[in-house]
């Protein structure tokens, strides 16, 4: 069902669209820019911290940085603060790795009432799973193509 709309449905859609207050896209973009930029800036500061005070180099400071940001996101999610920030920050909190951590943590916390194995374990990747699946599959396709091209090109 559902793909071809009748004329009547189309007419109603037009009416409903007129009445839809619409998303404040410009405002959302500005807030997303500020929030996302701030989180990335924070990441840069954390990276620098790890490079100066611990033995990390520019190449591998990314790992503890990401782990730290994930820790902070999980904490804010657990404390019930993350969703309030996210409501105004939008993509600014979803797109950085914080969004990934929030997706996993919020699902895990929510399903604790179903137990740790089936609830927490079984539902943890409910929202974040698609990112992993598509990332892995895309990487597989792209890397395979590259290897074949390099093999053929003999470089």
């Amino acid at each position: 069902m559902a793909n071809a709309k009748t004329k009547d449905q189309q007419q109603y859609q037009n009416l409903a669209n007129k009445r839809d207050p619409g998303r404040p896209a410009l405002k959302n973009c500005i807030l997303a820019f500020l929030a996302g930029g701030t989180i990335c800036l924070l990441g840069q500061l954390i990276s620098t911290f790890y490079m100066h005070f611990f033995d990390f180099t520019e190449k591998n400071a990314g790992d503890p940085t990401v782990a730290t940001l994930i820790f902070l996101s999980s904490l804010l999610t657990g404390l019930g603060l993350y969703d309030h920030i996210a409501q105004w920050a939008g993509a600014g909190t979803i797109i950085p790795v914080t969004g990934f951590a929030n997706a996993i943590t919020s699902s895990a916390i929510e399903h604790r009432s179903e137990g740790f194995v089936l609830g927490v374990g079984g539902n943890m990747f409910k929202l974040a799973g698609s990112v992993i699946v598509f990332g892995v599959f895309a990487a597989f396709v792209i890397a395979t193509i590259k290897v074949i091209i390099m093999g053929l090109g003999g470089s």
Partner: protein
Amino acid sequence: MLKGRTWIFDHEAIIAASSAVGGPFEAQGPLAGDFDLLFDDLWLGQDSFEKAEKKLLEQACQTAIRKSGIRQEEIQFFLAGDLLNQIITSSFAARTLSIPYLGLFGACSTSMEGLALAALMVSAGFADRVLTGTASHNGAAEKQFRYPTEYGAQKPPTAQWTVTGAGAAVVVSSGKGPRITSATIGRVIDKGISDPFNMGAAMAPAAVDTIKTHFQDLQLSPTDYDLVLTGDLGKVGHSIATELLTKQGLIFPPGVFGDCGLMIYRDDQPVFAGASGCASSACVTYGHVLNRMLQGELKRVLIVATGALLSPLSYQQKETIPCIAHAVAIHAGEESSR
């Protein structure tokens, strides 16, 4: 008597008592004084949202029964429904109440679906004392239909806030109290809206269809009711419904046509387009509206509960959202005690 799609209850179907219970967010709203019980813990001391919703319904039912003065064992039937899969809230509450039970599903239109059926049973002589109720819980509904409560998705302005609450009423064949005079049964209407974050727009056509049918079946005019309330169309849905009704020639006097979802929370509470959930229509009707009727402020009321009949799966399978609305007319009885 049947007229078109409307049942006219010739024999008495009286609301002996009703009750509304709510959660912490509802306690901050303007109708807080019309709730019998307000819980300040979203979990109601339970260890899951689902169990909390069950407790809400149990509390509403037990309070309504107590207010009616009838003994729980004398209630003959229990009609209830809710939003959760397999309507577990209602079934588990029925287990506690131990009353012969008919489970219903009408999404957020369940309150009036239950009230209409209860009135039918009583008026047709198949019962003397029937309990009907419904409940919803914000956390449970978000978990099932949308995202985990702590997830950082950005809700659009058309989103609605599911009420954490429950409402119940005891309908009897004789006695004092507001009378259920007629009920119009809704038809499933689907105008092709598929956005679960804009249910108001999806449900408005169903509300309009039922309201129009009710007025036509009974040959009524817009001044025949003091108050006509939709269940949970919210800002967007209600304005669409008003426009559609105006186009059909049903223009209500100012202040008559309202929406329960717009009454239950204050403007500064972060509820986007308004309240939704089975408890939206139930709490406002079984608390605020009936209180005003008992105080003599309202004499003739039409409640049109609206429901969106989607499932989380139907949305993922790219289906649109079919909706339904059931209307029940309540008239003030002779003077009754509170």
